Every structure is written in structure tokens, then in C-alpha cells.
């Protein structure tokens, strides 16, 4: 991986910059000592590490603005950070950059139950939003498995998804407005409590922009009333292809469950050992299908799903017999990454594929990993084709780590080839930056860079990520400006 060469001029001015930051927001907001900074040297893609120039943890939007204004005026790069759970190196610092973390800005500002919206500071954790509204029976829908730790800021920057997004959509479908500090320190509101954007849909561009456009400090998100009840069931199959077919048939029949999750045999084994969820151990593929509603509605829906699955001869069919078993079934799924992490280091891929290609792609993933001498476990959101192959390797073994990266790249190229994409929810970051050429033409990447430049013309925000380093925007033809003036 090639990193942007750090600006040694900036590094040489470090002491000056530290005092400038302290002056801008107060010394107690700035972390400059080595031990303090070490906590920020990586994110959940731990293969890459880098000590930042400094870390600032502001408490208000105005403080974020003061930091950015200072950095802008002094040509200092900035990396925005939430909780640092990014799996693609999105929050990886740079030696010549200041990390600006929003984790101390985590208040709920306003709840409108009638309009079903909440305004919060962006450093609030995903789960805390739901916790704030759950006494009234509401929740915030996007539910990444990291929801206990990750911040809404990170979710917005990555357009994160989760198991229940099949029914409720991902982050971009659940946010109505953001307050964002631009690199020059200006504070701008996009969207608001109303359902439609006014003018251009900037929110669509900001959500998923991976910290390239500005620092989001507040957001208005939609909340939803929880269903009366929900229950998962498990369907075990003797082949992944059959499980894939079952997913297609459920959806084709007109039923949209809240979630359809898939695990293969290696994943089932590890998760069962961890969660004692009662997963069947003698199957090749397991589907967790959850439906919502009243007791009666749930029973009817689950019965229909069993009927749909029957011709495919599932080797096991288990409906959760109560809340406790339901919780254990989900605990196993949500803890899957962690459980596998206790056994082995892994690279988590995140490509998406059209469902019709599922069986073939899973076979191909196994053979790709085998050809590199590696094992793989598959756990993913089957309803929307978002794969998460976990390629297991030994981190101390440099060669294995390298082979894992090669296998990962091959898998993602395969996803693009069958009509899918490089990343369904984890983002591009540094990890998939160079693979962007596989999915996009030069022209398309330049168009994206031009849009980035509208927000951050000096390229000070999260530089060296998302866009391959060799893609450059040519200076504009003068004709454009002339036409505007006319």
C-alpha cells in the first residue's frame, strides 16, 4: 500500500501547530503526548498504523470550527474520527495530520416523537440514539454490528448498514439533516426536520463521503416505532446454493423479512461455541430469518416461510421459542466478527453481489482462498447480497498477511465482475482505494474528485484515501467560466 508522502514542513512545525491548536480550543482539548496519541494510531483495520501529529477532541461545533479554521489557514491536514471502528482504514491518521475526534460531542439535542425525528450531536453512539427513544417504544433503524461503539458521525461518513437494513434501509435512508463544519471553519446546515431536501440533494453526497467533505457535528435522523414483536427462525441447508435459492424464493414470494442473515459452516461453528445459540452444526449453510408484528402475524409469516423453504429440503428448521432464544440467535450473529477474531486474525471483505450469483460466488471465494492456502468463513446480509468473507491468517506471518490481501482483492474483483461492487457498507478508505479502478473509469473518478473539490478544494480532509493517488483533476477549460458569465 502506497501512502501519501507526509509534508515534512508541517511535521517540522509541530510545536507551533500544537500551541496554535491550544490557542484555538484550549489546551485541555488537545492530546499531544505520545501515549495519548497512541490510542488513535489505527482503527479496526489494524494492519495499518500511524502516529498523528496531534489529536483534538472538541466539545462543540464552534470548537470544531475553530480547529478547522486554524488548520485551513496553516495548511494542516485533518482526519475526522468517530469511534475508530472503521474496517477499511477510513479513520487511519497521517503523520502530518491532526485527528479531530467528535466522541466528546454525544448529546441528544431534541426529540420530536410526533414528527418521529431526533436531533443529536454526531459523536453519540449508534445504540445510544435508540436507547434515548426506546422508553417511548421507538428506535433508530440502521444497526451495524458495531453499534455499541461506533458513532453516528462514522455511520454517516460510511453510510453504514446492518442486519435490519433489508426492511428499513441504510444510514442515507434514515437521515434528514446534518450540521457540518467545512474545512475553512464555516458551519453549514444541510437538510432539516422535513422529509425532502431543498435544492440539490447535498445530503446524498455527504452521507458516505468518508470524511472527505467536512466534519459533521450534528444530525437529524428518523426514528421508527418498534414493531409489537419480532422473532427469528433458523433454516439449515446442506449447500450454500440452496440457502441462496431459499432467499430468492422468500423475496420472490412477496415477503420482505426484517433481516435474512447467512452463515456458512466454519462461521456457524465458531459462533455457536461463543453464543450457545443452538445453531445446527451439521449444515453447510444457515439462514437466520426475522419477521415482525403481532404474535399472530409473526406465526402466519413464519409458517409461510417454512412452506417456501420446504421444497428445498432444509436439514433443520427452528423457530425461536421465546425472547431468550431470539436474543441468543442474534447475539451469535452480532458477535461473529469478534468470535472469529478470538481464533485468528482476519481480513473482513464487504463486497456486494446480485443474489442470483450467490451460490457460484461462494464456491469461487472458497477456491480463491484455498489457492492462497487460507481459510475463509462467510457471514453476511443475504437479503441484500452484501457478503462478508472473513479471510483468516496469522498476523505475525508476513507472507500469510500478504496472501490474505491478494485473496481479498481477487474476491472483490469477482464481486464487481458479477455485477456487484467493492464495498456494501464498510467503505473504501485506504483498504480499497486502489481497487477503485476496477469499478470506475478514470472519467468517473475524476467526476467524484471534482465534487470533493467543491467541498474541500485544498484537499486537506482525509487526504490520500478513497480516490486512487494517480487520479488527478485537470484544470478546467476556460469555456466553462465564460459560459457562466454570459
Amino acid at each position, binding site marked *: 500500500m502506497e501512502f501519501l508522502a507526509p509534508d515534512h514542513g508541517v511535521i517540522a512545525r509541530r510545536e507551533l501547530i500544537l500551541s496554535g491548536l491550544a490557542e484555538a480550543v484550549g489546551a485541555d482539548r488537545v492530546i499531544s503526548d505520545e501515549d495519548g496519541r497512541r490510542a488513535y494510531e489505527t482503527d479496526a483495520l489494524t494492519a495499518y498504523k500511524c502516529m498523528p501529529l496531534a489529536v483534538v477532541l472538541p466539545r462543540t461545533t464552534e470548537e470544531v470550527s475553530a480547529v478547522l479554521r486554524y488548520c485551513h489557514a496553516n495548511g494542516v491536514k485533518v482526519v475526522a474520527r468517530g469511534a475508530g471502528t472503521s474496517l477499511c482504514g477510513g479513520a487511519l491518521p497521517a503523520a502530518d495530520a491532526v485527528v479531530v475526534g467528535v466522541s466528546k460531542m454525544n448529546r441528544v439535542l431534541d426529540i420530536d*416523537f*410526533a*414528527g*418521529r*425525528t431526533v436531533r443529536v450531536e454526531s459523536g453519540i453512539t449508534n445504540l445510544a440514539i435508540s436507547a434515548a427513544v426506546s422508553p417511548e417504544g421507538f428506535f433508530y433503524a440502521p444497526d451495524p454490528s458495531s453499534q455499541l461503539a461506533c458513532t453516528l458521525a462514522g455511520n454517516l461518513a*460510511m*453510510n453504514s*448498514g446492518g442486519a435490519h437494513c433489508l426492511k428499513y*434501509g441504510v444510514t*442515507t435512508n434514515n437521515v434528514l439533516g446534518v450540521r457540518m463544519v467545512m474545512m475553512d471553519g464555516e458551519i*453549514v446546515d444541510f437538510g432539516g426536520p*422535513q*422529509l*425532502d*431536501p*431543498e*435544492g440539490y*440533494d*447535498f445530503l*446524498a*453526497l455527504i452521507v*458516505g463521503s468518508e470524511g472527505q467533505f467536512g466534519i459533521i457535528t450534528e444530525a437529524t435522523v428518523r426514528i421508527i416505532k418498534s*414493531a*409489537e414483536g419480532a422473532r427469528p427462525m433458523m433454516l439449515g441447508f446442506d449447500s450454500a446454493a440452496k440457502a441462496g435459492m431459499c432467499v*430468492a*424464493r422468500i*423475496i420472490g*414470494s*412477496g415477503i*420482505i423479512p426484517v433481516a435474512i442473515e447467512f452463515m456458512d459452516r466454519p462461521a456457524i461453528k465458531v459462533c455457536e461455541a461463543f453464543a450457545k445459540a443452538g445453531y445446527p452444526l451439521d449444515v453447510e449453510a444457515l439462514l437466520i430469518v426475522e419477521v415482525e408484528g403481532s404474535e*399472530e*402475524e409473526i406465526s*402466519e*409469516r413464519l409458517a409461510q416461510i417454512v412452506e417456501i423453504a420446504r421444497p428445498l429440503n432444509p436439514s433443520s428448521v427452528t423457530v425461536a421459542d421465546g425472547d431468550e432464544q431470539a436474543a441468543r440467535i442474534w447475539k451469535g450473529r452480532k458477535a461473529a466478527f469478534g468470535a472469529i477474531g478470538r481464533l485468528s486474525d482476519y481480513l473482513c471483505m464487504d463486497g*456486494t*453481489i*446480485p443474489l442470483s450469483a450467490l451460490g457460484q460466488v461462494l464456491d469461487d471465494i472458497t477456491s480463491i482462498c484455498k489457492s492462497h492456502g487460507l481459510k475463509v468463513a462467510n457471514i453476511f446480509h443475504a437479503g441484500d*447480497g*452484501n457478503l462478508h468473507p472473513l479471510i483468516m491468517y496469522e498476523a505475525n506471518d508476513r507472507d500469510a498477511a500478504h496472501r490474505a490481501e491478494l485473496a481479498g482483492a481477487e474476491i472483490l474483483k469477482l464481486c464487481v465482475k458479477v*455485477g*456487484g*461492487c*467493492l464495498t456494501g457498507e*464498510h*467503505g*473504501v478508505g485506504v483498504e*480499497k482505494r486502489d481497487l477503485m479502478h476496477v*469499478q*470506475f*473509469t478514470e*472519467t*468517473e473518478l475524476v*467526476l467524484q474528485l471534482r*465534487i*470533493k473539490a467543491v467541498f474541500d478544494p485544498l484537499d486537506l480532509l482525509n487526504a490520500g484515501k478513497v480516490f486512487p493517488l494517480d487520479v488527478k483533476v485537470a484544470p*478546467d477549460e476556460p469555456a466553462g*467560466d*465564460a*459560459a*457562466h458569465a454570459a
Partner: protein
Amino acid sequence: MNEILKPAADWELQSMVKQLAARNLSIELVGNGTKRSVGRPVNASMAMTTTGIRGISLYEPTELVMSARAGTPLSQIEVELAGRGQMLPFEPIDLGPALGSYAGSQTIGAVFACNLSGARRITAGAARDHLLGVVGVNGRGDIFKSGGRVMKNVTGLDIARGLTGSWGTLAAMTEVTFKVLPMPDDTATLVFTGLTEDLAVELMCAAMGSPYEVSGTVHLPQTLAARLLHDDLRMAARSLTAIRLENFPRSVAYRKGRLKERLKVYGPPIELDQESSLRFWGELRRLSVMPYGSQTYLWRISTAPKVAPQLVNTIRRHMDNVETMYDWSGGLVWLEIPASADAGASDIRRALATHGGYATLVRADIGVRESVDVFQPLNPTIERLSRGLKSAFDPSNVFNPGRMYATI
């Protein structure tokens, strides 16, 4: 304007745009032209229609996805989907009748370019939420794609979604890929009668705050209810507040019972069965209660539901004969006002400044649309960013110059 360009393929559209840009010419970009009278008058050298670029290019019912060329008529798409028991979840509104043209003739490209959604938007999301991918040509004459055919995709900037609501000012979409959903097996409607606007909004919000997945909430004051084609409801001769439920039959029956119980303080509702419900919501989708008229203008206001009635009251203090329909539990207000020189823009926007929200002038004479801000005026920063975005896509101002904002 007599020349209308009608490219039949992406490459042809691309080469036309390149030539136009090189000669510093601009075009008015349209689908079937049904919404030509929305927005500021476009002062372009010629027009271009996407209707030569048509056809459904991909439909995978089990993956809930369809791709169509931009000029495909929406009606064709809906027929195709219905054949497999599916639909566009966001129920795009058909402005044709309100704008003095036919219902059912808009193109799918325009639905996304204008981000047109209907009553179900409040639970299912807007057109923008269902767009998965786009192929388009920008003002430089570059063909580009963004997104794709899969539901989950965060690879690079979400340019496809960023094009929704841009009214053809940034790029010409040639293909759109979108998410579809199964049609519900059953639909029922509870119609509460005689409520004031305040109470109606309160009821609609209470219904939306229930766990019963209400998929439409609309309030019509008595004067608008009197314009319905739906006989039973017109003859009720009261204001109407409608709550829609959609699901499999047993579920609809159950939820209807629970909602009636929960909302009983609002009086006994009229109940519409499936057939009657479909007629009623179908009519609303064509905005039948606010038909075209040369003596009236039409505004569309987006705001937070809880402030909607006050907002409307403030506007009424400055204007007579204002008709309002509330959709999205009050978050969307359609306002019909008597024709006037500034279409009430200053009063309406002053009221918005107090209560929050924004307004778009959907129908007014061309002279009025020339002189007042049709789209909500932007604050200086957003305006600067909007100009920046325009020039990232279309630096020589080829597409729909001035349609949304005079300076863009």
C-alpha cells in the same frame, strides 16, 4: 424553440452534448415534457428529449431490482411490475393533471430527476431512497455511471442519489436502476371525518407513531373533499383524514382493529375496503383534488408535521381562498392559492422563515415564474456550493440553464 433533439442512444446523446458545449449552446432537457412548466423558464438554444432512449433493460423480481432507460414511460414500468405483483414503493406522484397535461405520461428518468414521491413516501422512503444506480452524460459530454444494481453499495460518492431532485440541471440520465417491492396483498383505509387541521395532524402523527406500519396519512379539508371523484367520500361532506394500512389480509384486519381502538377519541371512521382504497389513493396520486386551473397557482411546502397547521394559518392571515391538502402527516402541504402577481411568494416565505420548512412554486404563469423564486432561495453558502456542484458536472451550462436558480 423549434428544434427538438431526440437521441436514440447514449453515445448519440453524448456526441450532441459535446457539440453543444463546444459551440457554447444550451438545451432544455425533458422527458415527455409534462413538467416543462415547473421551474424558472429555461432560456435554452434548443430542447432535447430522452424519449428516444427507452426500454426496460433488466428486471429481476427475486432481487427486487429493475433497470430502465431514462425515457421509458412510467406507465410501461408499472405495468411490467404489476405483472409480477410488484410496484414502485415510493408511489411517484403524477403532476400531469395539475399541470394541465395528461396523467400517466411521465418518464422514469424524470421521476428520479425531480425526486417525485407520493403518499407512501412517509414509510417507504422517497424516489431518491430507491435509486440504486445511474448511467448519465454530464455537461462535459462524459458518460459516467454511479451505483449499480445491488442494494448495498458505498463504493465512492453516491452521485446517483445526488442527481435526484436536480431537475435535469446537472446531467442527462440515460439509465436508472431502482429498487422495487412486492405489492401488498390487501389495503384498507380508515377515514376520520370532520376534524380540524390541528386535530388531523395530531391524529396522523399518532397513527404514524403506532407499530402498525401505516403507509399513508392524508388530510383534506371539506372544500377539497368536495372535489373528490370517489363518491362515498365526496358525499360525506366533511373534512377527511385518511389512514392507510397495507399488508397480508389477516394483518390488515388486525391492525385496523387496533388502530380504531387507539384512535377512537377522533370519532368513528369510514372504512374503505381494498377496491375503494385503491381508487381513493390512486386519485390522490394524480392530485385530482387540485386540478389545473388558470385562476389558481399551486405551491408545495415541505416542513415538520407539528408546525404545518400554524404555518398554514399564518399564510391564511395574508391570503384569502387558500386550499390546503396535507400529506405525509402534515410534512407535505399542497397549497392552492388565487393567481396573483408574486404568487404569494413573499408572504409564504415569510411564514416559512418563522415556522421552518421550504416551498416550491409548482404551477404559475410564465411571467410569475420569471420574477419570483420558484425553488426556495438558498443561503449564500449553499448557493456557492450549488454553483460549484453545477460546474463540476456542467461547467459550460449546457443543461437547463437557470431552471432552478437564476445564477445556476
